[in-house]
């Protein structure tokens, strides 16, 4: 079995940092074009049209689409048979090195500072930065690197709900978050709204963020019941009379993604995350042979990730 070269991983990580910052994912752009067809209000239309123009300018100039390039982070999906050269310690070093390099070359805004001392390395690298989250994939020998550049200040909230709160509780908290951060456009909507339901409270935050950042516009949850809830929430969010920048309008939620985790029998923790008008994500699949394929859909939530069973069997074997 061949190892995946450290330098190939570093180059791929650097390349996705630039692509994420500069190129709006096509699913997101097409979704905004669809919203523009339905949006009736002049100010809201003005904002959406300016964003379309902005994305064209970013790609033409090879310039970041938004100067708040967020707090860059990585998601690593490693095939079960994949072997990175130097192991995962070397992979993490490659990712950190690529972050520092891309911050200088794109350039990105060096947002990351120490929370107390405000120490600034001007390269987006520091203690626990960039975050690197892992998942695994059976029967694969590649490693996928995904980077997400998401702003870190507004548009996210967490709440412990209880089973008796039911759908009403979910809808209310969804509305609370959209309204409190939607006014004046602090959430930089229309947003891909990710919702984490269940798990422990940190799990619900993690799942909700991944739901917002790692699923493309137009891809529903494979569970029909959850997909129905996603559609209802999207409809609800687009009927509060509010659009981009909090102006009167109907363009608030470009899509709603819900991810779930088994939770405490007495609770229903919920988190809401807004992935913004510069929804920045890019993925590289690095093969054992050294080829690299780039795309904007991270394909993060695989059947393996959503498994309910103790062991893993392929979905085909499960239905047989």
């Amino acid at each position, binding site marked *: 079995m061949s190892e995946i070269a450290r330098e190939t991983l570093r180059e791929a990580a650097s390349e996705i940092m630039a692509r994420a*910052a500069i190129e709006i994912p096509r699913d997101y752009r097409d979704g905004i074009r669809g919203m523009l067809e339905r949006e009736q209000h*002049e*100010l809201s239309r*003005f*904002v959406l049209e*300016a*964003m379309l*123009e*902005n*994305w064209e*300018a*970013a790609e033409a*100039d090879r*310039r*970041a*689409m*938004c*100067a*708040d*390039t967020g707090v860059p982070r990585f998601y690593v999906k490693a095939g079960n048979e994949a072997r990175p050269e130097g192991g995962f310690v070397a992979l993490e070093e490659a990712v950190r090195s690529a972050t520092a390099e891309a*911050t200088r070359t*794109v*350039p*990105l*805004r*060096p947002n990351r*500072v120490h929370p107390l001392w405000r120490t*600034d390395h*001007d390269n987006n690298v520091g203690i626990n930065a960039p975050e690197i989250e892992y998942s695994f994939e059976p029967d694969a020998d590649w490693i996928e690197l995904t980077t997400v550049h998401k702003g870190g200040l*507004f548009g996210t909230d967490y*709440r*412990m*709900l*209880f089973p*008796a*709160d039911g759908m*009403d*509780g979910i*809808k*209310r*908290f969804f*509305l609370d978050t959209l*309204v409190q951060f939607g*006014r*004046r*456009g*602090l959430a*930089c909507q229309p947003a891909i709204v990710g919702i984490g339901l269940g798990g422990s409270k940190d799990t619900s935050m993690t799942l909700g963020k991944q739901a917002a950042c790692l699923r493309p516009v137009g891809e529903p949850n494979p569970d029909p019941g959850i997909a129905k809830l996603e559609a209802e929430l999207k409809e*609800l969010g687009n*009927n*509060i*009379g*509010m659009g981009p*920048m*909090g*102006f*009167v309008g109907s363009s608030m939620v470009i899509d709603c993604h819900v991810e779930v985790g088994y939770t405490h029998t007495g609770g229903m923790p919920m988190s809401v995350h807004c992935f*913004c*008008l*510069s929804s920045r994500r890019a993925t590289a699949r690095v093969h054992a042979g050294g080829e690299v394929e780039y795309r904007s859909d991270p394909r993060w939530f695989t059947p393996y990730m959503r498994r309910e069973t103790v062991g893993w069997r392929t979905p085909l074997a499960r239905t047989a």
Partner: protein
Amino acid sequence: MAHTPRTHRLSTPVSPGALGELSIGDIVYLDGVIYTGREGLYRRVVDEGMAPPVDLGALSNVNFHCSPAASVGEDGSLNLGAVTATASFRFSRFMERFFELSGAKVIVGKGGMSEADYRELFVPNGAVYLTTVGYGTGALLGRGVTRVQAAHWLEELGIAQAVWVLEVSRFGPLLVESDLAGNSLFERENRATADAVERAYAGLKPPSLSRYGETVSRGDEVL
């Protein structure tokens, strides 16, 4: 009610007469010189009483709540890419003193401030607030920067908080958020959306466990 928005091109320093022409919701493009400033600059000059790194009033009367996506070369060259505003409401406590010491008449930022801030701080100083659009149109605004004159306090405050002096041409689009009378576009829109927001909540029962802020006072229980 809302008038038909007009488009203005303003040159810095922006004259009181030009500011008087602006109505909320109008579209603005800037030409001339603007400088960035956020908590790094404000803490120093307002809280700590330090002299600004350059005579701000002589430079421009437009202050931009921003930090650019930029890098500094080994030779000290300044490489500026995208430019986007940061949320302004956090800076309102600095504005009274900052208007005095800078002579700023135009604040450019994200999300605006409250109507009370405009009436108490902006109107007496003959100042208006222009909001960036989106947010954020970082690539379009980056295109509007023709030259970086300087980045002051780069060593002390870092790239994100330094005071960047930018020469700009057709820098925008920006929207007039507050006018010389202290009207706010955002607050007008908040009032216009309030009823629909209330209707969306109709029939949804409140959650079993409340949170502070949802009760009348902290003396009340959350249950």
